[in-house]
């Protein structure tokens, strides 16, 4: 396509948005309302997902090292585990640290553990986090298999970990399906309004066809118009959602009593919400335009 043709299409798109100002207003409003719901949902979904990954973090593998291996060997095993593709991080927990944390669990009854300092029965440990927590079980088996002499046992937490993981993936799936449904709903609402704006201009399309304009030549201005409607329609919802979220985060931060609600910070969440909302708006705008124009292009 030549540059001046593209400029013409862009000019036509802007002209028609301005000329059909009420139709534009209707389409942009419809887009704004649905995208507002979508934006609110996104904030919610990102936080849910964040909480789910916080849950996943609870799942780590404890690798109990054989008491007979030297600290050099420990370093070797640690760095070799770190190189495994499934592994996110490895942390060394010495037997002293292990004992300290065990004392913590017993609380006042820690006297029970007195005297163990001299002959600490707790082995040195590596705490391994899998990149994908759902792979923890297979990773722990792999570690036992790969280091039979250095590793006594590797434990990923068994049933409790499994139910945590099941829970977080259920939450993610529910949220994803809900979001998809919302996107489809938004698509129908917005494309219906765009259909009206195109219907108002069927005569123009008819004449373009009669004089031999190619189908793409006819589509382009509508294509650009759809993009603009989607973009314009996402401005207000993004602003409202982010301002609202910012307020909520501040209130919760100010009152530490609620600090167990760990909300995501404004950044980079804002970028995601703005980007995804605008992207959905644009995609729906384009899709709506192309779908609606199709019936006028049939010969």
């Amino acid at each position, binding site marked *: 396509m*030549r540059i*001046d*043709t593209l400029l*013409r299409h862009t000019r036509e798109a802007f002209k028609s948005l301005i*000329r059909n100002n009420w139709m534009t207003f209707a389409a942009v409003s419809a887009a704004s309302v649905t995208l507002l719901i979508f934006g609110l949902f996104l904030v919610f979904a990102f936080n849910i997902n964040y909480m789910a990954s916080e849950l996943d973090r609870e799942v780590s593998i404890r690798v109990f090292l054989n008491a007979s291996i030297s600290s050099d060997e420990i370093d070797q095993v640690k760095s070799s585990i770190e190189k495994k593709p499934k592994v996110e991080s490895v942390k060394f927990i010495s037997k002293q640290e292990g004992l300290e944390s065990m004392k913590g669990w017993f609380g006042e009854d820690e006297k029970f553990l007195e005297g163990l300092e001299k002959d600490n029965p707790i082995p040195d440990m590596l705490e391994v986090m899998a990149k994908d927590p759902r792979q923890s079980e297979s990773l722990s088996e792999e570690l036992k298999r790969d280091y039979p002499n250095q590793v006594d046992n590797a434990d990923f937490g068994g049933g409790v970990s499994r139910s945590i993981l099941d829970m977080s993936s259920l939450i993610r799936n529910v949220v994803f399906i809900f979001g998809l449904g919302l996107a489809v709903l938004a698509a129908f609402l917005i494309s219906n309004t765009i259909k009206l704006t195109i219907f108002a201009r069927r*005569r*123009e399309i*008819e*004449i*373009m*066809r*009669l*004089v*031999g*304009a*190619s*189908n793409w*030549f006819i589509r382009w201005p509508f294509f650009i118009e759809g993009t603009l409607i989607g973009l314009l329609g996402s401005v207000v919802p993004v602003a409202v959602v982010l301002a609202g979220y910012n307020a909520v985060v501040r209130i919760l931060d100010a009152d530490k009593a609620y600090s167990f609600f760990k909300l995501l910070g404004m950044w980079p969440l804002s970028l995601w919400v703005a980007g995804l909302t605008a992207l959905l708006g644009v995609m729906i705008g384009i899709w709506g335009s192309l779908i609606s124009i199709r019936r006028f292009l049939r*010969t």
Partner: protein
Amino acid sequence: MIEMHDVYKVYPNGVKALNGINVKIDQGDFVYVVGPSGAGKSTFIKLMYREVSPTHGVILINGVNVKRVRDWKIPYLRRKIGVVFQDYKLLPNMTAYENVAFAMEAVETPKRKIRRRVQEVLELVGLYDRMNALPSQLSGGEQQRVSIARAMVNNPSFIIADEPTGNLDPENSWDIMYLLEEINSRGTTVVMATHNKEIVNTMRKRVIAVEQGVIVRDEQQGEYGYED
């Protein structure tokens, strides 16, 4: 050249509009298509610019089988054909100049060529002075002249006109006819469906009469032949 061989058209609702049309229209011809309402004139005309496609039979336009043309290529076929309607079909929010220029933009003509050609064509139809007027500011005859300017601006081989004088008084009708005759004299084929007895009987041309979906008469220098 337009050729039709054994062309039938049955609409999806079961109406049999054409029942075996055979015709050949040479380059440079001037043809009136006449016949009672509902006889199939409109369908016959629409087949030529591929607004409808035949149920059966072959239509050749400049040797190209219209039915075989892929959908996306039809616009390129249409560029060889200019169409004029009874109701002008001008875009109301564009000036006379813009309406004509629109047809050139639509086929992606470079801008510098558009200006010169549009002025030239508007001069030919006698509306050079009115080029900045909106359709609502023009009379019916003037609007029809704009639509003829639009039809011919891309230098088509054919002008297909569907009752171009149907909404005009006799004086304006004759202006349009002289214009079409002028365009025809420069080598453009003109096919025109009409109900105007006076015009057909005065400006003698080839007459094709369609009744109940078939051609019942095809005469050079023919007469209108109906009473209405």
